[in-house]
């Protein structure tokens, strides 16, 4: 009888162990996915400010007026120079300046008169959209990872190890309406 109980206890211990290992594996996978999503967001933001600078360089002496060019140049530079702490506000600022400089379809159509500029505007529209997507996908994983980390087994047994607190990225990424595809 006692052999049976011992076997049962060992089997249970192994099952619980496997379950905990599996939970830790899920967390690890999620942390990895968050890193990738964050990299993607950083790349998209970098491309967006890059496209803004290119727009200033190309159209600054053409259909983009000096004041608009200065605003865009300044905001894009600030966004690229921002560190971890100021990134959200600097990028939100760039979104706001973009909307202010390109308030409606007419302004965009005026810029697009030059075919080279028009190509940069296409890139910029795509980059704006991808920033929105990347931020959403990033925050999605963060929210599900937080839900898993708040489970008792994870907190009590410290299955998350030394991984840092998980933060969503909150910034204003709304593009100018005239750059939206739909």
């Amino acid at each position, binding site marked *: 009888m006692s052999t049976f109980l011992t076997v049962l206890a060992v089997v249970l211990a192994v099952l619980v162990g496997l379950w905990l290992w599996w939970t830790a594996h899920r967390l690890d996978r999620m942390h*990895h996915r968050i890193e*990738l999503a964050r990299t*993607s967001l950083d790349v998209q933001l970098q491309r967006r400010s890059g496209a803004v600078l290119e727009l200033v360089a190309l159209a600054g002496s053409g259909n983009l007026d000096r004041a608009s060019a200065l605003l865009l140049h300044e905001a894009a530079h600030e966004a690229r120079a921002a560190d971890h702490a100021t990134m959200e506000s600097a990028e939100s600022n760039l979104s706001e300046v973009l909307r202010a400089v390109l308030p409606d379809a007419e302004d965009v159509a005026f810029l697009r008169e030059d075919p080279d500029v028009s190509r940069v505007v296409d890139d910029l529209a795509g980059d704006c959209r991808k920033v929105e997507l990347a931020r959403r996908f990033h925050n999605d994983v963060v929210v*599900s990872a937080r839900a898993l980390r708040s489970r008792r087994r994870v907190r009590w047994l410290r299955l998350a190890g030394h991984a840092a607190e998980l933060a969503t990225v909150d910034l204003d990424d709304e593009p100018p309406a005239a750059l939206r*595809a739909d």
Partner: protein
Amino acid sequence: MRIGIVCPYSLDVPGGVQNHVKDLAEALISRGHHVSVLAPSEETDLPPYVVPAGRAVPVPYNGSVARVSFGPVVASRVRRWVRDGRFDVVHLHEPASPSLSLIALWAAECPVVATFHTSNVRSRAMSASASILRPSLEKISARIAVSEYARDTLVNHIGGEPVVIPNGVYVDRYTSASARPEWQGESGTVCFVGRLDEPRKGFALMAAAFNEVAAGRPGLRLLVVGGGDVDAARQRLTPAVRDQVQFLGRASDEDKATALRSADVYVAPNTGGESFGIVLVEGMAAGATVLASDIPAFRRVLADGELGVLFRSEQVPSLAAELAALLDDPARRSALDAAAAGAVRRYDWSAVAAQVEQVYETVAVDTGRVS
């Protein structure tokens, strides 16, 4: 990009998800991508981009019967497809269904995009198995919902912030369809599309309005596309106008395009339950002037009446008056048709596939392999 698409339902039977997968795959291929579609099928003359995963078994799932594939042989075939495909992105459809998509989700090591089609907020299967599914669904890098309804279903059961990218329409298939003179009436042709016995599609409203409008117009014709009890439907028409109505039954896509192309006015009297109103886009693409009920989805597609005419939903007098006015005003119809012809381009598969492509590029941005 190398893109692997997984369809959970058998390609041997027609269905919304299957059509979506084939249309998307073809649109992506024409944009220069390498696409492989894995789906249950036993047919031999499949499109070249399809890899058949074998027989589909009918099983009860989520309140109806789904034709799906599973089991150890299927699973090893899925793993081989994933491994040999060397995909940059794997795009799963309906990953919560017990079929290929779920198996591929386990096997995939590259970024995974998933599209959710189901729109049923009280989906019992989804809420019962959400806890079993969660560890798998965590592997998805980006979620797409095909409509606001599908989005709500997903948010309710699994959470997250899916992106809404609607179904596309191959606009040119409708623009280039040819009208059939024998389906057209001398003084105008009206078209209705929808199941006859589904009250939400509004055939009763269509019939009542047609009785009124056709009374003084013997040359007016009504084409009815959709399955259901034709005899019961005919009873709704007054004997005087019965001969002016032609029932085409459950028509093929080609016949639907031909019917819409033959019509001057396409009437959509739906009373609700439409999440998007793709059929309005089909009507506009075919060059029929759209007259639709003013439910929110239709308002949006018709840009509040700029691209077609709206009548008060479920009000026969309003429908009949607007229909008669439209038939009597060819100039207004051509103005609306011209506006609609330009506006439908953004629902074309080429535009929709570009949006999906942006999602791929976002998740597959210089990443290594994901475990």
